């Protein structure tokens, strides 16, 4: 029931945004894509307890795969998404074979290393990827041959929202399933999970791969909506900011990823236009305030407020 309300609010917010900011659709589309990316991190960080600062590895690979596929094979958007998903999942699966053997800080460092290595690879093969000039020539064909991308970005926005909804439904089902419960068990106590007979390593690899598929989809969407892929898709900053958005909204609850991303990016957008030099200060203050006042993230705000109101009695 709660989830149905959540989905209804989500669709409503998407519609209101569409009509309220008709000239900012490029930005709002970026927010939606980022939401998908942050959701992919919530699955591993929030649900499974895997530490990561290198999710850009899968995002970037999804972006390049979809971009190259568009330039060399087909401009069909949904096919491009599938290729991006495959690339993200593939990179996640292969790297997880090493990453999931590590824990904590070591794991964190290794995830960063994977993204950096991939960036170097993309840079080295500049004849293929365009290197620091970026990969151009992406020009998505109409979706399913029907809806053509317009220059204002209306179709692009609706397309991104549709993908976000699909990802959200998928993750809701997955996280309430026995597999999802097992992931939370692994986060709480890997030792106990082994003691009840769970192949913990295999579950972690599966979670990381699924998360990679979703990050790859986000990357592919980004490539299609901006019609450009540059080396910055592998940026450390992308991974780090996404984690901040997740913490801001609240981890391990999916909705938190959406709220955190929307607020972080909106504040960023407004603050950067008001003061292009000191906007980072505003973001920093916001994060500090939330982490200090509501450690559960903004999603925990109602409960925290109720607690405050009840206290005087």
């Amino acid at each position, binding site marked *: 029931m709660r989830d149905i309300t959540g989905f209804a609010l989500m669709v409503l917010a998407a519609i209101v945004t569409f009509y309220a900011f008709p000239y900012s659709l490029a930005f709002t589309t970026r927010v939606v894509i980022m939401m998908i990316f942050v959701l992919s991190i919530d699955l591993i960080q929030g649900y499974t307890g895997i530490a990561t600062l290198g999710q850009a590895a899968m995002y970037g690979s999804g972006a390049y795969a979809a971009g190259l596929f568009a330039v060399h094979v087909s401009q069909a958007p949904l096919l491009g998404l599938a290729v991006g998903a495959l690339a993200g999942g593939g990179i996640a699966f292969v790297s997880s074979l090493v990453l999931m053997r590590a824990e904590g800080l070591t794991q964190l460092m290794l995830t960063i290393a994977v993204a950096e290595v991939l960036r170097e690879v993309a840079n080295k093969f500049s004849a293929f990827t365009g290197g620091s000039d970026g990969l151009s020539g992406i020009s998505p064909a109409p979706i399913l041959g029907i809806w053509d991308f317009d220059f204002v970005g209306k179709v692009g926005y609706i397309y991104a929202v549709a993908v976000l909804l699909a990802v959200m439904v998928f993750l809701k*089902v*997955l996280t*309430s*399933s*026995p*597999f*999802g*419960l*097992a992931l*939370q*068990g692994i*986060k*709480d*106590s890997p*030792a*106990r*999970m*082994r*003691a*009840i*007979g*769970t*192949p*913990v390593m295999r*579950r972690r690899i*599966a979670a990381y791969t699924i998360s990679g598929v979703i990050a790859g989809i986000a990357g592919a969407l980004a490539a299609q909506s901006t019609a450009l892929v540059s080396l910055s898709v592998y940026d450390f900053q992308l991974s780090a900011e996404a984690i901040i958005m997740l913490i801001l909204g609240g981890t391990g609850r999916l909705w938190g990823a959406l709220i955190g991303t929307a607020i972080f990016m909106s504040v960023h957008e407004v603050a950067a236009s008001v003061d292009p030099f000191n906007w980072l200060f505003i973001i920093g203050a916001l994060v500090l305030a939330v982490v200090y006042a509501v450690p559960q993230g903004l999603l925990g705000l109602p409960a925290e407020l109720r607690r405050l109101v009840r206290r005087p009695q």
Partner: protein
Amino acid sequence: MTGVATGKGLEVRGLNKSFGGLVVARDISLRLAPGDRKALIGPNGAGKSTFTNLITGVLQPSSGTLTFDGRDIRPLSEAGRVKAGIARTFQITNLFKTMTVRDNLRLPILERLGRTARGFRRADRDAAVEAEVDALLTQFRLADMGGRVVSQLAYGQQRLVEMAMALALKPRVLILDEPAAGVPSSESPLIAEAIAALPQDLAVLIIEHDMNLVFKVANRIIVLVAGAILTEGTPAEISADPRVRDLYLGAHHG
């Protein structure tokens, strides 16, 4: 009476484990047959936890054999040994602390049924699983606690959840690692009661410091000192053994 060599149950023979020059298990042999209630006692550092870890597959023995119903279990992983029927509890409560009691019990049941790889259908809607959760809650007198997050439970109750989780795996051998550790003496009878109510054909090995509990629930006691078995006998024999009194009981009952 339980020593008949039918090959049934867990059999440990000549088990050794050393870390470099440090010997932590020395030529340990013991049998756990269905229905056994054995206790493993010994002073701190005697190697009781190491022994648990060797049986459950957390550690690999340096030498010696481990068989279960005649089958060599040394190549099996931790998870593999659980599937074979060997379950354990933890000395320091090791629950899924952010989950409800029900979820803590659901997980081992789902795992036993081989369902935790399933990514569709809700985890909390299977009638058979829910009925089993209810039965466990009733058996361990936690019926009112199902919806609580485990970290909100009294410590004694957390120890009961600990045991219920292991039992949810329907094991044939159950290793209870200090089931009453940290439990206030007022709640200790609850633990003894829960152990007494375990299925009759289950083989149980209790590793425990609380002598009252050991004498109440075990019919054979094994004394471990410096990684080796000092002696094994009935509770009466053990409490009459002067070596045991000196080494171990003296400190508590002196």
